[in-house]
């Protein structure tokens, strides 16, 4: 499979008469862009606001992040099964607006899996998205049935953000990319002797799919990953919009759609392919609540890894707590099958750092890269500007915020300063591979 990513490097985003890209500047016709979002009649109120690195701006509640992408010379959707009909992702050409992301931001209402981004100051280090120019879709909807629920599907805002991301990238349809990135990985059984003799590895992904009710989980071509058994996936599909993020997991553990589209572990495996490793491809698994489901998925992964002749695996989970059981079960099954495995996860050691790092442990999980502590307590000063609504952090049950605490008070103070758990930092633990953090003993 061969995918060409036509990269356009966005240095500045502003509003103007026509949506276009020229010399590093992305200009957005706001009215037209809002019309694209409002194609869904459930969007009742909508604005687009730009936040750039260094701005004294806090963004909350953030529900999703997407890199603007559009297929080129084809009717195919950038997010098949989501913004258009199901079609094969990971082939042909896709344009990408690099250095920016479309954020889905609640105008008022937050939910459990939503997060926070500070564009400057101490808080900026907690999330990758402080380094990007964020095109914030700030919206409200008429989804009354979940208005006061802690768990929200956030369907209208999330889908609106995906449409907006695709709309923006369509603006460069006829432009010449500043960089062409070619991602090609041929059939596993048709590789040269030189490549085949290298250690063969798979990347095993465990995206979030724990909600039994449909509408909250990560999707594969628009299909809920809860209704799924592990399967082989081409890495290009992951990078090219076949997967979108969900609306459930505590935010620092979450993989946004942007994280799927730019997955750094896949990028590194590509760069090692043919040099030190034979990158076979991705085994896409999931995360489940019942033991039987966990075992079934773990066994499927080990079986697939064995069938394709994997010597090694990198295993990553999008979650913590209950999903640790899936992570460890899968690790153990892979090791039992003789597949040498390295795991990637974050930890939940509590505010005092003394809790057991993962819900379950096993001595076979002897190689782990760890990316952060969801429960670290963080205090941050007020920001000049808030995009969204600051009170959502405390009021709406975000995983790392609270309305009341005897000792700490509410997460949001009158002066606009905040106290929260790392849990609510938007995709902050970056288990997909960006994380510059690790965990140490104190």
């Amino acid at each position: 499979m061969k995918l060409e990513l036509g990269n356009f490097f966005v240095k500045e985003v502003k509003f103007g008469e026509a949506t276009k890209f020229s010399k590093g500047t992305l200009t957005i016709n706001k009215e037209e862009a809002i019309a694209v979002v409002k194609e869904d009649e459930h969007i009742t109120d909508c604005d687009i606001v730009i936040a750039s690195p260094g701005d004294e701006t806090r963004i909350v509640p953030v529900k999703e992040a997407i890199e603007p992408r559009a297929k080129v010379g084809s009717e195919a959707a950038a997010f098949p099964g989501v913004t258009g009909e199901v079609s094969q992702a990971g082939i042909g050409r896709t344009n990408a607006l690099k250095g920016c992301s479309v954020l889905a931001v609640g105008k008022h209402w937050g939910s459990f899996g939503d997060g926070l981004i500070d564009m400057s100051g101490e808080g900026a280090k907690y999330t990758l998205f402080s380094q990007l120019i964020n095109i914030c879709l700030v919206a409200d909807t008429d989804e009354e049935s979940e208005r006061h629920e802690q768990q929200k599907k956030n369907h209208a805002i999330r889908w609106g953000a995906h449409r907006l991301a695709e709309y923006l990238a369509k603006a460069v349809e006829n432009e010449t990319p500043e960089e062409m990135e070619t991602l090609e990985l041929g059939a596993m059984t048709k590789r040269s002797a030189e490549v085949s003799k290298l250690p063969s590895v798979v990347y095993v992904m465990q995206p979030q799919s724990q909600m039994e009710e449909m509408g909250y989980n990560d999707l594969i071509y628009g299909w809920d990953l809860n209704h799924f058994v592990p399967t082989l996936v081409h890495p290009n599909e992951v990078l090219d919009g076949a997967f979108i993020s969900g609306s459930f997991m505590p935010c620092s553990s979450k993989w946004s759609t942007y994280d799927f589209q730019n997955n750094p572990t896949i990028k590194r495996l590509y760069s090692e392919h043919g040099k030190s490793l034979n990158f076979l491809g991705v085994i896409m698994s999931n995360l489940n609540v019942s033991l039987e489901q966990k075992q079934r998925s773990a066994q499927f992964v080990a079986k697939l890894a064995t069938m394709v002749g994997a010597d090694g695996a990198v295993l990553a989970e999008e979650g913590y707590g209950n999903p640790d059981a899936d992570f460890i079960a899968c690790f153990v099954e892979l090791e039992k099958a003789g597949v040498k495995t390295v795991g990637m996860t974050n930890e939940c050691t509590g505010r005092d750092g003394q809790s057991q790092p993962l819900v379950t442990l096993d001595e076979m999980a002897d190689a782990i890269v760890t990316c952060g502590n969801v429960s670290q307590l963080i205090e941050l000063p007020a920001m000049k500007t808030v995009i969204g609504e600051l009170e959502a952090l405390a009021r709406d049950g975000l995983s790392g915020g609270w309305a009341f605490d005897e000792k700490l008070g509410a997460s949001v103070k009158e002066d606009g300063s905040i106290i929260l758990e790392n849990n609510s930092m938007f995709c902050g633990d970056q288990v997909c591979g960006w994380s510059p953090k690790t965990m140490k003993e104190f």
Partner: protein
Amino acid sequence: MKKAVLYINQFFAGIGGEEMADHAPEIREGLVGPGLALDGSLKNAEVTHTIICGDNFMGSNTEEAVATINGFLKDIEFDIFFAGPAFQAGRYGVACGTICKHVEKEFGVKTITSMHVENPGVEMFKKDTYVFPGGKSAAAMRKDTAKMAGLGDKILDGGTLFLAEEEGFFVRGVRHQVWREDAVPAADRAIDMLIKKLAGDDFQTELPIPKLDRVPIAAPITDLSKANIAIVTTGGIVPVDNPDRIQSASATRWGRYDISADMGLEGGVYKTIHAGFDPAAADADPDVIVPIDSMREYEKEGKIGKLHEFFYSTVGTGTTEAEAARMASEMVPFLQEAGVDAIILTST
């Protein structure tokens, strides 16, 4: 100048060896024994007082010893608390850990001790206080006190979070996130680790998994009707006066009690001292934890050969694996000598 207090045992105070191990707690102004070396290394505080307690006194009368020392400390001002070094002396190590844990909790003052890696006090208390790996004997005194003083100075300078790998104290199971100085992203760390693992090279996991000490399941009893069965409990059932002074939590002591003449355990004669559950039902009828009554019936029916003359008891709540294993290893010779074939282990 800030103030430090040092806890030492009767031996290092020059009072005497084993024969003086029942020495009751006392407090002295100024430096005694190891205090000289500690005070010499310590830059940000002076050692103003030394507390001395016999190892046996601390081991056998823990509550009294801790309460007495607590009284001493209430009357003085201090900013940091040291104990030991205890080297390889087991009771001394446990005493240092016990008093450090108490002082840290009651006074909110940081505590530091040192012991050899094989000292049982390490496993028991490394989560409760800073324990530095120390030498086997007093030959390491200067080196061990210098390590204690080094961290002490940093704490007195206002430091709060210290990396185990930098300072050198035993890992305490306190894990926090840090930003790597080299900022190497997780993906690169994972692939580099995988390449090493595939090549059979050494690699360093970022999340060491504690070794589980699994015990293989014993072979089944071939003929139960001839077997001698004992009951061991972590449910804290003891004679009402708790003659062995077993602690209600984080137990380090155990007892065995003769039930050869009993058809069951009577409330009022036996009770539970376990602090981890509602004791009402067990106090009313201790057989619900240690089922002597049912075992006697089995004995009468001929289902089992006999019930061993003693039951063995300790408290499981908060008790470390290391302590539990030590107590079990102390019980086993009695059970073996009596020809016990199998044990029923009950909890709460």
